């Protein structure tokens, strides 16, 4: 042992570190790196520690008293930790087929006119493969729905479906806009109605723009920025809009590639001469900064006057989030109303009738019951529209019974902007299925091998009654998602 090197690094020969493990070869280099350092452990290169056989861990390991209560759990090898976002992706992943399920021979694919044909009431029909891809691209399927149990995704054609599809078709034929809010109790199939509307639109070559969860827009979880030269100030959400553009592009590839632009868009960074396919325009945004101008250009092209455009379906799920004050803050730290967010404003204008779709189409929004903020104005407006519609239908006998609800004069939480939007919408209330439809559902489940029971009138009535009068989600719980298989 050389005395100078030991003195220089002030190491005590006994303390855990053997002197032989110290870097003898180049004491000068050590001294140069940190001349006054007393932390020899940091100075040592790691390889030499291992070769020197120095003990790891605490200096007094083995001599310390470890009480059972404070003993650390075994830090076993837990393998690779999941990357950011991976666990959420696993949770949200959507499976659309189950190879164990028995293929149902009588299942037919949906055709363009099938959802509007009353002869198909209470029939299960499969979604064609290309429509599946389109719906998947615009995130119409949700992880809580039971798509993963059957051989291929199929939907029940209900009376409400046919009603809605006919309304859509009428609006498109007359170049009007159907403005519809799908409302109903929990698990009655409101999101499925929107999905069926989208399927109908895709089958008839409409352009479909779908906002899968409105809460992503208004709960302040995506970036926002003020749009210059707007008064009152509006805000764009570039990251979300970029995602939406990509979804629109993938979902409407066939339709958009056939439509050509009518005007040049000088405000875009890329040059877009007239007669470019809209698909190229939709793909022009590569990064969030360019997304909002590109979306505006795309929208102006889709709603261009005089050009022959296909009908447009604007759909959204979770309307209540759109009808509240958002969680975003302005620079003055005031809360921003959702209708000041540009994308939400576009949807709300279309729903309220302020924004006309020249080639016709539909604006369909579904409410949610489980994850919805309280929106008294929306609830009141929907109740009013429904009562008005019932009054119109009922005639003299029921007009006395149906009373249009009015504002509570002692409550001040109402929102005029929301009521203005919902002043003239149609409301489609979705209820439980009737027994014929329930029977169709259960026969499909049984034919797929997922329900191991005889489907007769007794079984259907039993499940129908158990599910609160045929609420389809509850029927699934009672018959499919049970431990009593």
């Amino acid at each position, binding site marked *: 042992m050389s005395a100078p090197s030991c003195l220089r690094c002030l190491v005590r020969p006994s303390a855990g570190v053997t002197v032989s493990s110290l870097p003898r070869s180049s004491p000068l280099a050590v001294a140069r790196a940190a001349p006054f350092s007393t932390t020899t452990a940091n100075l040592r290169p790691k390889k030499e520690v291992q070769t020197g056989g120095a003990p790891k861990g605490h200096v007094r390991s083995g001599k310390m008293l470890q009480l059972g209560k404070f003993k650390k759990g075994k830090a*076993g090898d*837990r*393998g690779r930790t*999941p990357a950011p976002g*991976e*666990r*959420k*992706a*696993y*949770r949200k992943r959507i*499976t659309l087929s*189950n*190879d*164990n399920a*028995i293929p149902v021979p009588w299942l037919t694919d949906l055709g363009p006119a099938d959802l509007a044909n009353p002869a198909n009431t209470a029939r299960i029909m499969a979604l064609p493969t290309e429509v599946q891809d389109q719906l998947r691209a615009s995130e119409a399927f949700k992880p809580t729905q039971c798509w*993963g*149990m059957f051989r291929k995704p199929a939907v029940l054609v209900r009376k409400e479906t046919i009603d809605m599809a006919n309304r859509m078709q009428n609006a498109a034929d007359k170049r009007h806009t159907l403005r519809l809010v799908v409302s109903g109790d929990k698990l009655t199939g409101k999101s499925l109605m929107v999905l069926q509307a989208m399927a109908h639109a895709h089958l008839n070559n409409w352009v479909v723009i779908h906002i899968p969860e409105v809460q992503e827009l208004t709960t302040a979880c995506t970036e926002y920025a003020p749009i210059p030269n707007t008064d009152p100030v509006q805000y764009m959400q570039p990251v979300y809009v970029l995602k939406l553009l990509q979804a629109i592009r993938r979902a409407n590839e066939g339709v958009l590639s056939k439509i050509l632009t009518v005007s040049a868009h000088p405000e875009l960074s890329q040059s877009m001469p007239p007669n470019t396919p809209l698909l190229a325009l939709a793909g022009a945004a590569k990064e969030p900064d360019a997304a909002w101008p590109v979306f505006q250009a795309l929208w102006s092209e889709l709603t261009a006057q005089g050009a022959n455009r296909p009908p447009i379906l604007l759909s959204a799920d979770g309307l209540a989030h759109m009808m509240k004050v958002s969680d975003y803050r302005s620079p003055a730290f005031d809360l921003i109303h959702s209708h000041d967010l540009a994308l939400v404003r576009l949807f709300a204008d279309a729903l309220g009738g302020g924004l006309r779709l020249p080639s016709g189409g539909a604006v369909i929004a579904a409410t949610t019951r489980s994850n919805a903020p309280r929106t008294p104005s929306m609830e009141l407006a929907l109740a009013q529209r429904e009562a008005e519609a019932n009054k119109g239908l009922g005639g003299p006998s029921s007009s006395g019974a149906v009373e249009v609800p009015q504002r509570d004069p002692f409550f001040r939480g109402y929102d005029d902007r929301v009521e203005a939007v919902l002043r003239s919408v149609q409301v489609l209330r979705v209820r439980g299925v009737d027994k014929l439809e329930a029977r169709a559902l259960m026969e499909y489940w049984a034919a797929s*091998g*997922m329900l*191991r029971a005889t489907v007769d*009138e*007794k079984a259907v*009535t039993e499940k129908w009654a158990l599910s609160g009068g045929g609420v389809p989600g509850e029927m699934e719980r009672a018959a499919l*998602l*049970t*431990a*009593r*298989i």
Partner: protein
Amino acid sequence: MPPRLNFWSACRALSVRTRALAQRPQPGPATLARGLADNTSSRLPPHDRSGALPPSMLPANEQPTSPENEAALNQLRLIEYGLSPLDPAVEGHKYGLPELPLPTDKHTKHRYDAVIQQITRLLMKDGKLAKAQRDMAMILNYLRTSPPPRLDPSKPLLPGAPPAHHLPLDPVLYLGLAIDSVAPLVKIRGFKGMAGGGKSLDVPMPLRARQRRRTAFLWILDVVNRKPSKGSGRTMFPHRVAEEIVAVVEGRSGVWDRRTQVHKLGTANRANLNNEYVKGKL
């Protein structure tokens, strides 16, 4: 209100009425005229003017029109003769009476399969049975949607097990088969101080079916609790359990080794069953 005793009510009591009254009897002219003293015009109902009686007050001489009515009348006649034409299993019940004795799964407390019931309770934490039941439903759902297991011939399942591709469509059977196949037949019971020198004497003891299942599932739960979960959310725990069930059926699970170990120990110590002390205790 007491029934009015008059000639027509006596007639009504005699007649056989198979249908409910279509309408209430017409109120008498006096009732109608009440309070209308100034009104000099006649207010009598039209049939009174013609002198005929209201149809509901006439004796039932009309012919039964529908076959149901005919059948009902026939039954009434049979009752009159002292016969009992009504079959309680058919009449008066929309879906018939349940067959007796009731099958066990019709009982509220025994509505699930025995294995499912036991294992749901083993899954339960903090007394939250409903959550355990939801977890169990998710486990079964996972088994239904996962691909058919590839069986390992070195880790044979119970004899008589169906082929692998039948299993996912019957998840209850799948789960029960996995647990019963990996369940140990014996447990080792130590008799203190009997082996000499203060050592305990290991004696193999047979287990009942419920005990065997419990042991096997606790072993499976041990493995599951040590596994990291891949995703997040409420499906994670049931999916981990279900993955381990699949691993058991495919012979990949470490639970098989525990079973082999217990069985080896039992075989090695079976001579201890002849120990005098142990014999007396058993």
